[in-house]
Structures are given as structure tokens and as C-alpha cells.
């Protein structure tokens, strides 16, 4: 230790002229006081700001110069023998020099900035949102970093060794590993793990540069090339280890499975469930087939499903979407069509430019329609080619394949819900019905040829194939579920919680729930005539789930602390024969179950 201090003291003595330069710079900022402009406070502020910026610029400039001359200059001028012919170790030489550099930086920074900063704390607070001590710590930390960077490059360049080419290759390799590590995390919006990895790499870089300096002088001593080699091996060795650890960590994070989600949340869109939550220390999202638990990672923006096929918009695997590095310009998305059978299989993945609006997929997944920036495009999944495009006026819509060549568009507009068919062969749009009055843009549901639309006072059930229309008056707090056999279940979403079963407008049964229930909502139909319902208490999320027999009014309860995953709209619904399962969120276990909509059997979604 005494050798380190002796060397540090010697180095400081040799570079004491730095303090003279710092004093000269410190005298510059008070000159701002002499400007004839502004008030007393303004000029004080100007002095503080100028002093701080001068101090930062001087300290960082000095850091680079110190780094470049710390060892490299004596090494190239063959003056390191002065130390090596004395009883001091290479490590002591390095740490003595580094300690001297840090002391020079800290003292110089203090000389230039101390007085104005102390005199103008208030002005500093105006200038910076971070407290002065933190700002000083950041500036000095950056200065030490610059010193180490200066030392690295000085050693590498001054040695004139061909190893420099290997350094360059190593740097490119590391950058490639880091890009391969961070970009997927960015695309998965796993920012916390990304920050951890960056911290690991920076920490490893600092440790590698500090340790490398000691190793360089211990192993390379006065030989510039050996010194270079020793530094490079230590530095890149540690960086590679850190990069590999970071890479492995990112792979581990990205390999999170939905069964690892802690207290997941979920929504159901058609036959698939989107679940998300925290797994392996970061946000993770999945699109899951509740029939078999098969999933694909990536929380989707918008999706449509038919049986085992799901079409969705997911973030494009581009730099632009990673961490929002490039904030200007349109975001980039991918239209993805995936089969969620025994194994997930991506049928199509096409990047689109612009914000996605709507998506639809046909029964076998051979066609997908997507609307991006008011352009509706129909793709052939197998060839990934677009078959036809058309400009449309709507932004939000539902897209339904009536046949492989007819896409039906349900677009809520100011005039009401517009239903339009797009013919892929003729590339023509044709109106199916006149605009249907609608309460708000989400208040419609389509299953097959049945369209249910809610307006301010009624629900209209329209058979688009037959052209028939039923209109059911409905109170504001009431909702309506169209059952498989054509019965209506009108549920009261306020107290008292009741469900009224009607056939052809005639009440068949009125089912009442307990006093605690402040409302009820039908979520799905199980088998024929059994309703999966949720009641909620005074707290909106205090829900209880029941299976209610519409014929007898009998109620049975699935696991008490479970609630079905939401789907939209929540006030109206139609039993969809294509939807075989409904996801149940278990509040007691924090897991997700799936309830079979044929039998009512409940099983864990992931085993």
C-alpha cells in the first residue's frame, strides 16, 4: 500500500501543473458576472452554469489526456524501467498511477466548480433536476471511465502491434453478442433485464480495464507488445465472460414460460387467450390456445382466431422497436399467423409499416386480412403474398372471412356500424346493410352470420344471411347473451343481480343472486343451457363465479377464487360454437385454468 501511495504522490507531483490550469479555468466563469445583461440572480445563475460546464469539460478532457498518458506514454518512450528497476510490483505501479489520476480529476473538478457550486446551490437546482452531490458523482464516474478508455486505446495504439487487428475483431464480436443479447430483450420490452445486462457489461468493462491495467504491468512490464497482449487478453477475456453471462441471462429471461407467470392477467379473444404478467424478473406475454396449452411468446397488439389458428400483430423484430431507439417514423409491426396445435407453428410472418388497426383470419388459416393505415390487405398465408388491397375509411374494425375471397368488414363509424364486404377477386367493396345505430364503437359482436349490435336503448340481433332482425329493448344496466338454442339471457349489471331467461320474448325463468352481489355478467355458455357467470360485489374486482342452469336456476360453483378472463364487449355476447374453452384466472393459486365449454370440466391450462 505504501508503494501505491508513493507512486500516486510522485505522479501527482509530476502533473501538478494540472492544478494551475484548473485555477486558470476557474477564473473564467466569474467573468460572466461582468456581463451588463440580466439581473443579479440571472448573472449568478450564469456563473454557476458556466462554472459547471467548464468543470465538466475540463475534467473529461483531462481524463482522456491522463488515460492516454497514464502508462502508454512511458511504455512507448521506454521509461517504465524507472519503476521496474525498483522494488515495486506491476500492480502497485498501476494502482498508484490510477489513484493519482483519480485524485487529479477530483481535485481539478473541485477547483473549477466548487466555489460557484457552493455559492449558487439554488441556481444549480434550476439548471439540473438531480442534486449537486449526485451530479458531481456522475461527472467523476464518467471521468474515471474516460480515463480507462483513454488508457486502453493509448496502450493499443502506441504498441503498434498487429494484435490491434484482433482487438478490433474482438470488439466487433462483443458488439455482435451484445446486440444479439439486447435486441431480443428490447423487442420483448424486457427493459429491466436489459438494464441489468448493460450494468453487468459496464461493470465488467470497468473491472476489466482496472484489472487489465494491473495485469498488463505485471505480465507485460516494459515490453509494449507484451503489455498490449496482456491487457487485451485480460480485458477481452473478462468482457467475453460478462457478455456470455449476459447472453445466457437474456436467453433464460426470454425462455420464460407462461406457467412461470406470477399472478397473470388474461383476456380472451375468440378461441385464444392472451396472458401476461411477470416471469423471470420481467414482463412476459403469451398467446395461448386454452384447448391444449400450446403458446407462442410475445404479447400481441391485436388478434383474431379461428379454432387453432391465430393471426396477430406483434412487434417487428427491428432495431426501431427495440427500446424505442429510433423514436421518429412509423412503428413497425409484423402480421403473424400461427397454428397452435400440438406444437406452435408460424404459417406466415410479414412485416408491415404503420400502426395496425384490424386483423382477421379464415377457418383454415390460409388467408389473413389486415388493416394498416387505412389499407386493407388480404394475404395468402402459404405464399406470404398479398392478394388484394383496398383503401378503407375506418380505423378500428372487425374482419371476418365469409369465404376465402370475401372479407366482411364491421366498422363502427359516426353514422353507426357499417358492414361492408370486400371481394378479393374484384377488389371492390360492397355495403351489406345500411349503417346500424350503435352505442359506442365496441358494442357489437359477430358470430357466424349473426350480428348483435347495441344502441342506446336496445340490442339488435341481425342474421346477415337471412336478413332477419330482432330488436330487444334493454335498460342501461342490462346486458344480453344470445344462447346456443336462441334463448336470451338478460343479465342485470347492477343491484339486484338477476338473470332473466327469455325465449321469443317470453320470460322463462328469473334467477336471483345473493344480496352481496352488486351485479352479474354472463361470460360464456357451457354445453347447452348452462351459463358461466360472474357476480361482483361492492368492490368491482370482488368477483364470484357460478355455473347457472338456465332451465332449473340451479347454481354450482367452480373454484371459488376464480374468474373468467375478460373478453369484449362485456355487455353483450353470443355463444360461439368455435370457442371450446374459456380461461379462468385463479386468484387462490395465481395460475390459470381452462374450463371446457362443452362439459364444464376445469383443468389447469399448463401442467
Amino acid at each position, binding site marked *: 500500500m*505504501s*508503494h501505491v501511495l*508513493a507512486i500516486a*504522490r*510522485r505522479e501527482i*507531483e*509530476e502533473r501538478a501543473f494540472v492544478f494551475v490550469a484548473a485555477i486558470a479555468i476557474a477564473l473564467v466563469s466569474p467573468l460572466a458576472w461582468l456581463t451588463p445583461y440580466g439581473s443579479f440572480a440571472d448573472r449568478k445563475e450564469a456563473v454557476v452554469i458556466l462554472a459547471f460546464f467548464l468543470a465538466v469539460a475540463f475534467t473529461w478532457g483531462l481524463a482522456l489526456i491522463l488515460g492516454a498518458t497514464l502508462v502508454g506514454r512511458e511504455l512507448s518512450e*521506454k*521509461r*517504465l*524501467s*524507472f519503476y*521496474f*528497476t*525498483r*522494488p*515495486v*510490483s506491476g500492480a502497485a505501479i498501476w494502482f498508484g498511477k490510477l489513484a493519482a489520476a483519480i485524485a487529479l480529476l477530483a481535485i481539478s473538478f473541485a477547483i473549477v466548480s466548487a466555489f460557484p457550486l457552493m455559492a449558487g446551490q439554488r441556481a444549480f437546482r434550476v439548471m439540473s433536476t438531480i442534486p449537486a452531490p449526485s451530479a458531481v458523482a456522475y461527472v467523476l464516474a464518467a471521468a474515471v471511465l474516460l480515463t480507462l478508455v483513454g488508457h486502453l486505446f493509448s496502450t493499443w495504439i502506441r504498441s503498434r502491434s498487429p494484435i490491434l487487428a484482433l482487438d478490433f475483431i474482438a470488439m466487433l464480436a462483443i458488439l455482435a453478442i451484445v446486440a444479439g443479447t439486447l435486441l431480443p430483450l428490447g423487442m420483448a420490452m424486457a427493459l429491466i433485464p436489459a438494464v441489468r445486462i448493460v450494468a453487468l457489461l459496464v461493470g465488467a468493462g470497468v473491472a476489466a480495464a482496472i484489472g487489465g491495467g494491473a495485469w498488463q504491468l505485471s*505480465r507485460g*512490464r*516494459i*515490453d509494449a507488445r*507484451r503489455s498490449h497482449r496482456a491487457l487485451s487478453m485480460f480485458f477481452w477475456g473478462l468482457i467475453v465472460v460478462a457478455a456470455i453471462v449476459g447472453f445466457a441471462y437474456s436467453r433464460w429471461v426470454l425462455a420464460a414460460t407462461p406457467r412461470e407467470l406470477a399472478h397473470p392477467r388474461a383476456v380472451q379473444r375468440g378461441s385464444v387467450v392472451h396472458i401476461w404478467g411477470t416471469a423471470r424478473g420481467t414482463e412476459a406475454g403469451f398467446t395461448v390456445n386454452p384447448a391444449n396449452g400450446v403458446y407462442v411468446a410475445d404479447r400481441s397488439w391485436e388478434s383474431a382466431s379461428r379454432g387453432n389458428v391465430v393471426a396477430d400483430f406483434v412487434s417487428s423484430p427491428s432495431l426501431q422497436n427495440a427500446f424505442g431507439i429510433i423514436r421518429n417514423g412509423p412503428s413497425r409491426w409484423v402480421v403473424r399467423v400461427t397454428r397452435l396445435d400440438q406444437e406452435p407453428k408460424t404459417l406466415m410472418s410479414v412485416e408491415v409499416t404503420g400502426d395496425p388497426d384490424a386483423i382477421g383470419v379464415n377457418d383454415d388459416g390460409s388467408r389473413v386480412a389486415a388493416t394498416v393505415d387505412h389499407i386493407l390487405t388480404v394475404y395468402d398465408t402459404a405464399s406470404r403474398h398479398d392478394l388484394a388491397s383496398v383503401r378503407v375509411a375506418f380505423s378500428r374494425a372487425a374482419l371476418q372471412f365469409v369465404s376465402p375471397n370475401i372479407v366482411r368488414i364491421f366498422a363502427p363509424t359516426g353514422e353507426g356500424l357499417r358492414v361492408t364486404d370486400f371481394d378479393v377477386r374484384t377488389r371492390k367493396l360492397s355495403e351489406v346493410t345500411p349503417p346500424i345505430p350503435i352505442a359506442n364503437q365496441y358494442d357489437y359482436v359477430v358470430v357466424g352470420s349473426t350480428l348483435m349490435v347495441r344502441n342506446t336503448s336496445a340490442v339488435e340481433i341481425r342474421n346477415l344471411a337471412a336478413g332477419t332482425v330482432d330488436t330487444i329493448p334493454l335498460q342501461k344496466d342490462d346486458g344480453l347473451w344470445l344462447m346456443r338454442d336462441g334463448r336470451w339471457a338478460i343479465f342485470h349489471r347492477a343491484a339486484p343481480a338477476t338473470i332473466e331467461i327469455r325465449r321469443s320474448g317470453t320470460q322463462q325463468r328469473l334467477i336471483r343472486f345473493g344480496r352481496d352481489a352488486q351485479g352479474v355478467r354472463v361470460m360464456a355458455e357451457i354445453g347447452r343451457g348452462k351459463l358461466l357467470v360472474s357476480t361482483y360485489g361492492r368492490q368491482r374486482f370482488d368477483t364470484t363465479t357460478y355455473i347457472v342452469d338456465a332451465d332449473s336456476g340451479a347454481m354450482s360453483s367452480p373454484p371459488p377464487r376464480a374468474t373468467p378472463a375478460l373478453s369484449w364487449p362485456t355487455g353483450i355476447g353470443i355463444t360461439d360454437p368455435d370457442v371450446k374453452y374459456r380461461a379462468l384466472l385463479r386468484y387462490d393459486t395465481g395460475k390459470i385454468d381452462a374450463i371446457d365449454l362443452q362439459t364444464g370440466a376445469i383443468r389447469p391450462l399448463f401442467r
Partner: protein
Amino acid sequence: MSGDAIRIDNLTVRYGRRTAVDGASLSVAPGAVYALLGRNGAGKSSLVRCMLGEQKPQRGTASLLGQDAWTHRTSLMARVGVVSEEADAPPSMRVDAIARFSAWLYPRWNRAAFDERLSRFSVAESARFGDLSKGQKKQVSVALALAHEPELLVLDDPTLGLDVVARKSLFEEVIADLADRGTTVFLTTHDLAGVETIVDRVAMMADGRIVLDEELESLKSRFRRVRFAATRPAAVGNLATAAVRSWGTGTEMIVTNYDPASPLDAAEVSPMSLEEIFIAVTGEEGAAR
């Protein structure tokens, strides 16, 4: 380990494809004054750097005072004084600051001896090292190297660039100190006349190899310049010659195995200086090894 002050075994140093030291071996007994001689680029400095643990050889070992020079450099340097070929102290440092710095590093530091030598050399302590003349820098280096009373003194071409007076002063300083304490001295030099009176043993390097390693006395006794009146002397016998050239109407030979007990029928037999022997050994002919 042997009792040698310095031992070098099969040492090889390469710089890329160039071999600077090629399998060199030597040993120096404690208390001896040993001179390593060689032309520029012969490999002396590389060998000295390895010997001081500043550079790792590609092959072979160097040990000082019974310890490996590479692995024990730090502790060894407390027992070794070094005068480098180039004065390497920072130019901006004042002489007294260098002395103060050195005093922190050495457990045995004799400030009085340092000051005394400095005054003998007439070097001001307040002078900046970079402002000193070449000779003064060497003198300061010698004073620094001796101030911690080393067991071994290594001087790498200490007279390089010095004038005659400075050279004489330097060797007298070394000799005086040796007389006082019996320190082992290893030096490399081109000043053969200067060291001829002080060294016990010499080694000569050529092309990275030790081509000769012998007691000075023995070396000087076997080398002779022999001149014959005849162009083709008849009775050469078993004489080994380093060089043969014409001398007027006769012949001059450099004999490397002269034996005073076997007189030659020669016109003239004269002893040779170390410088002449060095030229005969490492010169253009370079055959007398």
C-alpha cells in the same frame, strides 16, 4: 539454486522472427566484476532486461542472487542496483524528489551516501533531471543505484555518451564502492579500455550468442599478436589463429592459444588489449571463439 550472484541458462529472446538472444548461458560469482561485451544489436540489452525481470524470455531462465528474476523481481530489486542504458527518470522530477521517492521504496536507503556522491559529482539536488547533462544523468543514476547498498550492481552501458572525464569518474566511483563493500558488478559496455582494469571476467556476445566467457587474465594471456618475417612461416605448430594478414614482407597472426612456455621463432610477439581481443573475436572475421 547455485551460489552464483547471476545465473542465466539457455536464455532465448525473440522479437517476431528476429532472435535477439539465442540460448545464452552465463554465471557470475558473488563479488566478481563481470563485463558483457558485444557490438550494437548483439543482444546485450535484451539479456539484461530478462536478467532484471523486466522482460520474459521465450525460453530459458535468469536468476539473481539465487532467485528467479521474473517471478521474484519485486523483492530482488530491493537488493539490486541498476543503472539503465538510457537515463529513465522522469525529466520533470527534481533530483531530490527522485531521491525522496526512492527512499519510500527501499527498506535500506542511505540518504547521506546519496548526498555525498551527488556532491562529489557536483550535481545540484534542486536540478530537474531533464535539465542535467548526459553525464550528470548517469552520475545521478549511479548515486541512486548505490544508495540502497545493493548486493548486486547492474550497469547497462553506463558510459554511453559520456566524455572521457565522466567515464573515468564513473568507473572510479564504481571501483571505490566495490573496494568498500565487495558488491557483485555486472556491466555491459563499449568502453573496453575503461573496464579492462576493473573486470574479473568477460563475456562476448555476437548475433545473440555468448561466443566467449572467460577470466580476463586467462583471456589476455592466450591472445597474442605474432609477426613473422617470412610470408609463409614454417613453424606454426599447433597455433590457433583468429586472423592472418600480411605484414610488410612478412605475416601477422592473431594467436588465440599462445603458450609462453613454448617460445615461437617469430620476429615479434606482443600482448593484446581487451579492445583488440574483442575486435578479433567479434570483428569482421569473428573467428577466434
